[in-house]
């Protein structure tokens, strides 16, 4: 056990490739915990950001600036009565949220947070991701049916039709990115030599971008960009978020497929939805935005630049700690706010010490040798840049929700079939043609 634990430490492969089940399990647990924390953070950020878009404050009571609100909500949802309608199909009603949750979390096995920071590097990684994430819709469809009620059924029907029409455009956009992995050469249009076979592996896709010195979003400009935009639209539809949240459109179908759900079971749907949001954003980041690669790895290279970029994680947390401490100072001095003040201060301190830890690691690991600190530092950098890029998408999800009205069902379908599908087909063909011509 200990040997299998230690033997992996020097490896540069993912635990899956190295065949180390123990480390795979550790990675799985880390990712599960990480995603759960991310969902909690996302919950808080969404409420606060949405509130500030809408000139209100959002949660302010539970903890300083409502920081503890997600925990209070989780507790509330766990304690709430879990109602199963009498006429519902008991078993299917029970299993539906689990399907969604399983699908959303299984995807994370192949998401590469770094060249070796993934549970496994499957050689069909992207195919696996698309396949499993499309299983999530089964949970919604089945939940709508099992509720034995009209509104959920309509939500389920909408959801399945939506998924079928957007999956195609999404898949074609993905294929055009996968096509790019088979090219060699540097730069946006630079292609040299004979094209080798490409790869479906998530890690391979990022490495291809590294090799070509360009994110695929800029490759064959504007083809990569268009494919990316198509994917970015389709992924919003895939996870049922505004403006494509037809399956749960609250003003039309009360709450769509989860109308009859309550308590913990309902919260599982929410968990699955947010986990799926992070997962599809990760696909977009991996395919088009260079995955874990930091910005300008080739333009600004050298140990000095590496060191500067490795300070970013620590500085980010330092900034957050600064904001928290500023909030502590600005808290009204009334005795009502005493506990909140202390809480926010402690939170700021925690963030600050995390920042200090990260900075220490960055300084200790600045040499390019293979010491543990250096490898750790490297790993933190990978995960940081990956998470940062994903976070941009998460913010976009909130922004969309605050800004846009909801599409109507038939319009959504016609956008999917009549706009996105032809464009993505065209982009795919053009990418192939340009790839051959430029060579």
């Amino acid at each position, binding site marked *: 056990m200990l040997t299998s634990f230690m033997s992996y430490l020097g490896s540069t492969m993912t635990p899956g490739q190295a065949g180390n089940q123990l480390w795979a399990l550790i990675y799985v647990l880390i990712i599960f915990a990480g995603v759960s924390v991310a969902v909690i953070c996302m919950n808080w950020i969404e409420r606060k950001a949405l509130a500030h878009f809408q000139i209100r404050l959002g949660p302010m009571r539970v903890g300083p600036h409502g920081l503890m609100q997600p925990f209070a909500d989780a507790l509330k949802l766990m304690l709430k009565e879990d109602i199963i309608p009498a006429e519902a199909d008991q078993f299917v009603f029970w299993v539906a949220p689990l399907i969604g949750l399983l699908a959303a979390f299984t995807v994370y096995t192949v998401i590469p947070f770094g060249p070796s920071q993934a549970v496994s590097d499957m050689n069909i990684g992207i195919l696996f991701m698309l396949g499993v994430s499309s299983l999530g819709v089964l949970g919604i469809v089945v939940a709508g049916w099992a509720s034995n009620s009209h509104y959920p059924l309509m939500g389920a029907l909408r959801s399945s039709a939506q998924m079928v029409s957007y999956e195609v455009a999404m898949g074609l956009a993905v294929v055009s990115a996968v096509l790019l992995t088979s090219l060699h050469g540097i730069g946006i249009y630079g292609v040299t030599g004979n094209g080798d076979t490409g790869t479906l592996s998530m890690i391979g896709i990022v490495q291809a971008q590294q090799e070509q010195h360009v994110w695929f979003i800029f490759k064959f400009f504007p083809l990569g960009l268009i494919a990316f935009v198509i994917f970015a639209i389709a992924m919003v539809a895939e996870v049922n978020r505004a*403006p494509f949240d037809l399956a749960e459109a609250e003003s039309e179908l009360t709450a769509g497929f989860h109308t009859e759900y309550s308590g913990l079971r309902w919260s599982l749907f929410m968990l699955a939805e947010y986990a799926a949001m992070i997962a599809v954003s990760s696909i977009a980041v991996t395919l088009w935005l260079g995955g874990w690669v930091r910005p300008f790895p080739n333009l600004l290279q050298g140990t000095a630049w590496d060191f500067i970029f490795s300070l970013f994680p620590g500085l980010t947390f330092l900034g957050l700690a600064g904001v928290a401490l500023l909030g502590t100072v600005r808290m009204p001095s009334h005795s009502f706010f005493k506990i909140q003040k202390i809480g926010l201060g402690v939170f700021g301190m925690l963030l600050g010490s995390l920042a200090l830890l990260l900075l220490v690691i960055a300084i200790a690991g600045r040499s390019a040798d293979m010491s543990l600190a250096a490898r750790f530092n490297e790993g933190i950098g990978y995960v940081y840049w990956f998470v940062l890029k994903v976070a941009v998408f998460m913010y976009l999800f909130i922004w969309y929700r605050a800004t846009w009205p909801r599409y109507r069902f038939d319009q959504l379908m016609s956008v999917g079939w009549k706009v996105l599908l032809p464009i993505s087909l065209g982009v795919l063909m053009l990418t192939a043609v340009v790839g051959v011509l430029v060579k």
Partner: protein
Amino acid sequence: MSSPVNDKTLPNAVSNLDLEAPDKPYLDSNELIINMGPQHPATHGVLRVILKLDGEKVLGTECVIGYLHRGVEKIAENRTYTMFNPYVDRMDYCAAVSNGLGYCEAVEKLMNVEAPARAQYIRVILTELNRIASHQLWLGTHALDIGAMTPLFYTFRDREEILKIFEKYCGARLTTHAFRIGGCQYETYAGFEKDVTNFLTFFAPKIDEYETLLTTNRIWLERTKNVGVISAKDAIALGVTGPVLRASGVKWDIRKALPYANYSKFDFEIPIGTNGDTYDRYLVRMMEMRQSMRIIEQAVGGIPEGPIMGKVPKVIKPPVGEIYHSIEAPKGELGYFIVSDGSTQPYRVRVRPPSFVNLQALDIMVRGALVADVVAVIGTIDIVLGEVDR
């Protein structure tokens, strides 16, 4: 006065659903009967719409109303004229001032008295402010129905400024009871003019802000254009009034056609639409808010000095007779038909509620549309269930 333009023929009568079909297997025949409401996020209260659907397509609707019926007309027969005045605020509670204006003017007409000039100006200012507030509420909820969350909060933020003026003027924010038979109870507070002018300068850019969010938003356009179309002819035949009628291209506004209060003194335009769809109704109401601001601007600059209460006896006892008086409420023609038997209590008060009559047009507006359109159309008709049910 333009005559109705569109000549699309109207189905002779608005047919109703055949709900008594003997236990039809709905799912097998792909026909779904769905109860939208009375507890539903988008029915603006306790409206219940029974939808007959083919998949998502609406084959027919039937409105079931009356959940909020309080018997306002019966109450009126058992109260004196003065006592009934606050009750009218509770009908269209989003536009309480308009309701009060209509009632007070109807009784004044019945008694053959007229409110003094200063009172008239105050009335116009408050009523137009109330029109803006009502349209703001409509815009926020309508946008929310279509899925845009943010406009709701923007409109409520700005509506707050109007409610503050109401509160300062008469102490109440929603059901104001601002006017009395014969004039106004309260003199304007110090700084009333300034508050109103400040509001106008505050609000002008805010309308632009709403429009930035919605007017050219592609999803908004797709969701509202050609949705819930009603031709001018249909609208007239169905008795639809207010912005819904004007959006169909009929340039008819009681403030111009049969002027009441002192609207004839002010210079404003009647915005009209062309297609009679949801988008046109949206535009018409947005333009109406700007026109209301124009009226307020003129009125606030010209408030004359003088008494605010006309010569009305302490006990209001109109002579035997009957009167129909209507005003242009934010939602359409609000009429009061009052029969007096010479006593202190009205013999009969009939309220002609704009929401009630406009709601009748829902059926032909949503037939053949999708479920999502039903929600949009309910929003665009701008109903208040307190007024529909009375």
